[in-house]
């Protein structure tokens, strides 16, 4: 973005160069690019598996019997069941694949809800200011400081009474996660709004006589969303962990309604003691991989947005020398301690 504005011809690059993640991909070098690409690949695989789960999974997520009768419980991996079966007699591979779909749905709903509500509240708090701002921030801080999982559990109990159907469960999980995330979006958007509000163009809009609503949405909001892609990636991974945590504690989605990795891990708790590894390792690895992929993207975006952490194109002799080259920026960002 900045590169485009500072170039002499002021030609806007094609739109695909300005997409949030692709832009950073072009900007990155070396190992940093490797981490970003790895993250993108893992996440892409996750999304593809989630979308095509019905085609990829050998059985249904709640299927207990095949053509030869019942699958049987806790069967070790075999040709029929590549990853074995669970204590409840489900096929592990199918549960893992279908679980991707549940996870993706929860991420999408949770992020949409919290982005929408968080931005709306942050915009109002930042733009209106005064007592409304103070109260919103104190409440948001209180919620932010509290263990998010506990809050999500309480929310899950209120919304669904603990357990529920596919969409009921997905909505319950997503809303519980939303409650926890809103303060973060609120804070970020509010800070940005306060920054943008004092810019000259907002003032000129006021002078011209634009309405509050128009200024808020056209002038302030459009310029306040630069850090959102980063928070969205970080929160997607947190959403998966919260969903799995809820499932693990028994406040998630019923196994007959959808496959959920946390639930499967909870059921495998007793298997582990008797040395049955396949029921826990595979859903667990699925969680780790997806969170890893999304976090790699988020971390890379974070580094690329931060001049202190962005990898340099020309390698310097020692790390310290290289950092010293960017020192003015670094000092400004850090604030001097001495």
């Amino acid at each position, binding site marked *: 973005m900045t590169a485009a504005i500072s170039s002499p011809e002021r030609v806007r690059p094609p739109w695909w160069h300005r997409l949030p993640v692709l832009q950073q991909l072009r900007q990155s070098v070396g190992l940093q690019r490797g981490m970003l690409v790895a993250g993108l690949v893992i996440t892409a695989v996750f999304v593809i598996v989630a979308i095509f789960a019905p085609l990829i999974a050998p059985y249904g997520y709640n299927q207990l019997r095949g053509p030869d009768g019942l699958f049987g419980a806790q069967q070790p991996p075999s040709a029929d069941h590549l990853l074995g079966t669970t204590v409840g007699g489900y096929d592990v591979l199918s549960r893992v694949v279908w679980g991707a779909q549940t996870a993706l749905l929860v991420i999408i709903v949770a992020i949409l809800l919290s982005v929408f509500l968080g931005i709306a509240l942050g915009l109002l708090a930042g733009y209106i200011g005064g007592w409304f701002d103070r109260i919103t921030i104190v*409440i948001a801080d209180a919620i932010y400081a509290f263990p998010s999982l506990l809050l999500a559990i309480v929310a899950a109990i209120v919304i669904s009474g603990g357990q529920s159907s596919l969409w009921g469960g997905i909505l319950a999980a997503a809303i519980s996660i939303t409650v926890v995330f809103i303060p973060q979006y609120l804070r970020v958007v509010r800070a940005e709004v306060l920054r943008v509000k004092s810019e000259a163009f907002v003032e000129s809009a006021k002078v011209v006589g634009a309405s509050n609503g128009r200024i808020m949405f056209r002038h302030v909001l459009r310029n306040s969303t630069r850090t959102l892609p980063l928070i969205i990636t970080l929160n997607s991974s947190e959403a998966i962990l919260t969903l*799995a945590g809820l499932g693990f504690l028994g406040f998630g989605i019923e196994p007959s309604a959808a496959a959920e990795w946390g639930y499967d891990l909870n059921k495998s708790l007793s298997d582990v003691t008797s040395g049955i590894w396949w029921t*826990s390792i595979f859903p667990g690895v699925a969680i780790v991989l997806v969170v890893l992929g999304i976090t790699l993207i988020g971390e890379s975006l974070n580094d690329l947005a931060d001049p202190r952490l962005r990898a340099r194109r020309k390698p310097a002799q020692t790390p310290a020398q290289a950092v010293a080259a960017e020192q003015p920026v670094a000092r400004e960002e850090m604030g001097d301690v001495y």
Partner: protein
Amino acid sequence: MTTVTAPAAPPGAGTAGIRKARGGGFWRYLLVRFLLIFPTIFILVTLVFFLMRLTGDPITASLGDRLTPDQLAERIHEAGYDRPILVQYLEYLGQIFTGNFGNSITDGRPITDILWTYGSATLELAVYALIVAFIVGIPLGMVAAYFRDRWGDASLRVFAILCYATPVFFAGLVLKLVFSVWLKWLPVAGRASTRTEIKIQQLDDQTGIYLIDAIRTGSAAAVGDVLAHAVLPALALGLLTAGVFLRLVRTNVIGTLSRDYVDAARSRGVREYRLVRKHALKPALVPIITVIGLQIAMLLGGAVLTETTFEWKGLGFQLAYYLSKRDFVAVQGIVALLAVIVALTNFIVDLIAAILDPRVRY
């Protein structure tokens, strides 16, 4: 996680009111910050109270399937749950203020008793986990910062992300599988073996912190047993936090390594190890301490999962139990205590940050 990018300005500190109190000095900052504890606790307690009541009264929730409608109505009337919700709310606030949380519905134990017994177990686990996090996170973070953008750094960062990406309960399951079931080195679950527990029960005044109690029994076997039980839960919970510390230390040490005084020290011939250890780490510690405060909350959340995985009978384990029984009186009590702990830690952390860095307190 967003704090990693802006370590100097944690969202946890209630800054809205403080920024204006410029020039008031340290004591004024202290007072304002101390007073902010109360709205935090108040908001959380209120939130949980009303959310819980949205699902109905506690008696129906926990005993609804065991009693007849008449018995239920009688119990509800006895406990006063048929009065207007605002009256109940005010009464509840009054009870909290006097430190009386009532009795749990399922087993009739006083909530304060429950908090005392299980709180010490959770405290013990949290301390072990923090020790693991410090030992693993801070040195590795310094190493990663020093070798930034080289292979050592990249692999350490992936390790940090893996620590964070692995749900504590899955880390716990894998550790259990490898070290308890396959290698048989460490016990599978619990806080101590039955023999040690009996020994500890025989002590006159137990602290509830098993390590201290075990030392007081004077038996080396008991101490070893308690420690062996603590290794896996502490690792599972500690590695989660270690990942966060590693990233944080790395980012901040990279920032301080670029300062003039580090170059100056290097030109004076200070050894590279000392340079990172003393000159770069110390100034980076302020944001680290601030984030530790936020980590306490994450640690408590993680403790619920870790304790469930390892049957570590602490607050989290008990909370999960009471939640499954829908015993909302007990749940409210535990959540209120956690809210107090979170608010107090944030206060203490801000205090330490203000002592270390005068700029914080305006």
